[in-house]
């Protein structure tokens, strides 16, 4: 198909995408501007460029005694988010497979149940979860946090993975079954390899949900050595006064790993989210 596109379409199309991108980046540039401007005030002038560039705010994050001074918090966050992704993915992949491929009583009902649990306001769950973790002896531990994060991520993971698995042609697993494969073999040898993009995206989501959370983390953790990055970041927001420069610099530090992940998973992000897909 080599039809030439007329130049007004070209110009308008490029103009539209440039404007959309500029509008999208403007607020983000502001975060960068606050992080790079020396001092802790919130400059309200509309220009997204800093007047003076300084890396002081970033340096302060690592200064000894600062709220985010320790690599340890970055490490904690990585451990928690990666473990959440792993645990969430492992438990939801099998469930998604069952929902997509197997028949059992209560299939529809439990699928609805999974979707519905996604809907209870999280802010109301902090205190019951606190009591539950305490009874399990997991308060103050990263394990407890991972448990909470991965289970709250499970319903979404199941839902999104099932949508993708539905798009993988059934003929493939039927052929394997004729060859004598068990359900487990079909799952691990046929379906999982084909679902790789969706697995990557679902893991990314679980990772993100854990990576940015701070209210539950601040409530459940009682030891500075177990604090995650967002908890430390939130310490810059005080009762009367917010340290905007530090807060913005911290937010950028929090965002960088996510952007790297987005970049690395670009391909999977596009094909793995199809959730339901298209049967061509």
């Amino acid at each position, binding site marked *: 198909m080599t039809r030439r596109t007329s130049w007004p379409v070209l110009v308008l*199309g*490029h103009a539209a*995408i440039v404007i959309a*991108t500029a509008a999208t*980046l403007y607020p*983000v540039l*502001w*975060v960068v501007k606050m992080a790079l401007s020396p001092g802790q*005030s*919130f*400059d*309200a002038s*509309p220009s997204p460029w800093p007047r003076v560039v300084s890396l002081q705010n970033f340096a302060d994050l690592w200064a000894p005694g600062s*709220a985010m001074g320790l690599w340890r918090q970055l490490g904690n966050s990585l451990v928690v988010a990666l473990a959440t992704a792993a645990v969430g993915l492992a*438990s*939801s992949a099998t469930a998604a*497979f*069952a*929902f997509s491929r197997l*028949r*059992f009583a*209560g299939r*529809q009902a439990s*699928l*609805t149940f999974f*979707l519905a*649990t996604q*809907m*209870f*306001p*999280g*802010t*109301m*769950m*902090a205190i019951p979860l*606190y009591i*539950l973790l*305490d009874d399990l002896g997991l*308060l103050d531990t990263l394990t407890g946090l991972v*448990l909470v994060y991965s289970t709250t991520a*499970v*319903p979404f993971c199941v839902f999104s993975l099932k949508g993708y698995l*539905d798009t993988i042609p059934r003929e493939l697993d039927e052929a394997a079954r004729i060859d004598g494969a068990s359900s487990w073999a079909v799952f691990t040898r046929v379906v999982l390899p084909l679902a790789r993009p969706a697995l990557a995206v679902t893991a990314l989501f679980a990772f993100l949900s854990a990576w*940015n959370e*701070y209210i539950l983390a601040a409530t459940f953790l009682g030891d500075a050595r177990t604090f995650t990055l967002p908890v430390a970041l939130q*310490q810059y927001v*005080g*009762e009367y006064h*917010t*340290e905007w420069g530090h807060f913005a610099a911290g937010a950028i530090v929090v965002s960088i790993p*996510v*952007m790297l992940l987005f970049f690395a998973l670009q391909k999977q992000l*596009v*094909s793995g*989210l199809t*959730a*339901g*897909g*298209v049967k*061509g």
Partner: protein
Amino acid sequence: MLAPLLAVLLTAPRPVTLWHSYRAQEAEALQALADAFNRSQSRYALTLLAIPYDAMAAKVSAAIPRGHGPDLFIFAHERLGGWAEAGLLAPAASLPDVFLPGMAEALAWRGRQLGLPLAFKTLALFYNRALVASPPRTTDELLALAPALSDPAAGRFALAYQSGDFYYHVPWLLGFGGAIFDPAGRPELDTPGAVASLRFVARLARRGFIPQEASSALVTQLFAQGKAALAVNGPWFVGELPPAGLPWAVAPLPIVSATGQPARPFLTVEALFRSARAPDPEGARAAADFLVSDASALARARTARQLVANRAAYEDPEVASDPVLTAFRAAARDAVPMSSSPAMELLWEPAQTALRAALRGDDPAAALAAGERQLRALSLPPPPKAAPWASLAVVLLAGVAIVLGWHRSGRVPERGSAVAYAFVLPAAVATVALVLLPILFSVGLSAFHHRPDGGYDFVGLGNFVDILASRGYAPAEPLSFYFTLGVTLLWTAVNVALHVTLGVALALLLRAPWLRLSGVFRVLLIVPWAVPNYITALIWKGMFHRQFGAVNGLLRALGLPSVAWFSHFATSFAADVCTNVWLGFPFMMVVTLGVLSAIPRELYDAAALDGASPFQRFRHVTLPLLRPALLPAVVLGGVWTFNMFNVIWLVSGGEPGGETDILISQAYRWAFARQARYGYAAAYSVILFLILAAYALFAQRLMAGREARA
């Protein structure tokens, strides 16, 4: 062999923990004192833990009753009443007579001393000596001075302070003779003094003497840049001002000329509380006594410039020669300790509503009358106690009806295998344990009323009846459940529609074969997704500022009039929607890109051969394939938007007057900002859940239909 071990155990210092939210110098000073305490004796080791201010109150309330709290913690005295009633605080062993008047008294509750004062915060008048030679001593002087110092068009103001925040209005309210509580101790709003104070600030706003919608950041910016001659602010303001080049000083707030009374700010006492569950009361007491001693107070005042509560510190030559410390010490004489009664919490929201309405130009008397009504509606009496059996019967009947309905809906149960259950088991167990149990806990909680004293009364379905019967407000009024429900549905529909439209449009554009650099644009367009929304939402709020925001700047550049975004429902709602669309469109865009990449090119080629125009190809090839594939994303997007708390809370904050609140932010207010009505909030959540569950069921049918057809 045991003896040496025993000796070590006996002599090893026993741990004492202290939670605080201090930052920077105050935190450093506290740490230095903790180190000094640990050096001074060997029986106890005091360790500090900094908790984000935002999470402190909830954490303390959750941790202490379960025995995981700290031995000591630092917080403002305003929560004292609630914590005292809930039995979280231990009384102080002794009260040394070393504190400034009023400080220790603010920490007494029902005759018991439940905390020791460390420091205080209050408001004073900052002035720029380059702009005003001597600060105004009365409001008349202020009004006489103001016209020459103000030029709103050029961004110059006589006075900058957070005029829309009730805390900053209290000095005027009390100075004009207004009150916060009636003689019987109930919170009240609509008093003649309050009307006069609102008239006064409305006049300041109308004449352009003060900036509109002033946030703390804006106040700092205006004063630091010399664009505001005066500022009402607290001691924390000092740390925000440039270290050199600005000739500023601090003075007491002016006397209200109409009454001859000084403007009286609230006094907040930062207290050291001892947990009632501290395992080692001796150690906690020893550490507390050390931290509030005169010597420690002097150290805090000297190194952190803290406004300490001890009298003696102000006699120290170094402290006495600090003009800021002495000015605030003087300001504290006129200050009134903020009430620590839980009822105070209730006043905040309606007072703020009335204040902001008056600042926008509404009639002060009418604004206060509306606020008073809101106050009465919020302090609605608890539902009557109920007999458990009657409610249980209702719930059982409803359950039976649902099961019967389910049974008769003609589903054929699917035959299953044990293998299938094994596959679902891990996810199911985890979800039931950590998601369903807390939900059931909340469902149970919704049948109770949480009393201010911490106890619970069984009220059966009373909370639900109150919500659904819209007690306090007519159903069509803002702040009623039905109005909020309508706003929530509108919010969800508008957002999802815009997410999909924008996401699909941009995805189509990115897939256009003629677009240059599409890979770069694609990466840039998903950036909003990567940055935490609790900071970008705040940036958006700043962009919608009436006088200094980028959005109005753009409008002015285009020759259009500025908009007071948060003054009207429609524009405030639009600001929320804008923010949320910005946050949410990348997801839909990425999903659409995935679908588009899966459509075989041949389909388009075939359509092109048949002579279909680009629009026809979109209409007849892309759209039919896109629609079913987007459905799950739309369903999930709907749920996320419905519960999108952060945007509403951080951008409009419900402005004007709670009209842009959605159900989840209302539930949050009932639980955490209106006398801890946990039961009522839980009932709100359950209703929210039921609405969404019905939606899920509906969506499930829709998708199952697609599954069957495919």
